[in-house]
């Protein structure tokens, strides 16, 4: 069984969850370039914009076909990382909840500090920070929650 040819629908569903978390992390990285563009000189900002464009295209050209590929290989319609009750389905939900909680805390903190922050940071940059942080938090929590020992002791012994 290769990574791109999962043995069954449940494995495909797990791959879909991992791919989503990886794509969210990548999207966070690409989106966060918006923030840096506001604080660097014009040449560097233009270069960052180009990197962002290439990154955005990579998300569409690499992750989207893979996403469709795994979605088609999922088999039974019930096998969906957001709906099924398997391990990675639970991790996706937990990571989603963590990202939502982080987003709420960040929005509350920014709202409280808005009078002090708005003269220094534009509202647009604030939104970019919140969006990038939420995507990064989802991706990071997914990989932290799903990490740990994994393996079949019987197959390891063989």
């Amino acid at each position: 069984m290769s990574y791109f040819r999962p043995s069954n629908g449940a494995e495909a569903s797990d791959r879909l969850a991992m791919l989503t978390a990886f794509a969210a992390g990548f999207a966070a990285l690409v989106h966060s370039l918006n923030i840096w563009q506001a604080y660097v000189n014009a040449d560097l900002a233009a270069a960052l914009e180009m990197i962002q464009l290439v990154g955005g295209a990579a998300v569409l050209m690499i992750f989207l076909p893979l996403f469709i590929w795994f979605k088609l290989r999922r088999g039974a319609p019930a096998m969906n990382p957001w709906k099924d009750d398997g391990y990675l389905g639970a991790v996706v939900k937990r990571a989603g909840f963590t990202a939502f909680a982080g987003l709420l805390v960040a929005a509350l903190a920014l709202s409280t500090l808005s009078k002090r922050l708005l003269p220094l940071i534009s509202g647009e940059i604030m939104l970019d920070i919140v969006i990038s942080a939420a995507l990064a938090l989802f991706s990071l929590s997914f990989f932290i929650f799903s990490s740990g020992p994994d393996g079949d002791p019987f197959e390891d012994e063989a």
Partner: protein
Amino acid sequence: MTPPLTNRMRVLRAEKNLSQGELAEAIGVSRKTISTIETGRFVPSTVISLRIARYFGVAVEDVFSLTE
């Protein structure tokens, strides 16, 4: 607090000479789900627990039990 859950899945698998992947495929979950249930990192849903018990032809209580 939820009391710890133990299970006899590894024993039942050994009796049938099954790999985690084979069991996962038979009950329609991923291998990672089986491996994390066995190590106690993941508490399965009622549906998955019933599917596992039905596959081995035993009662759910013969697969899963509370340690206290």
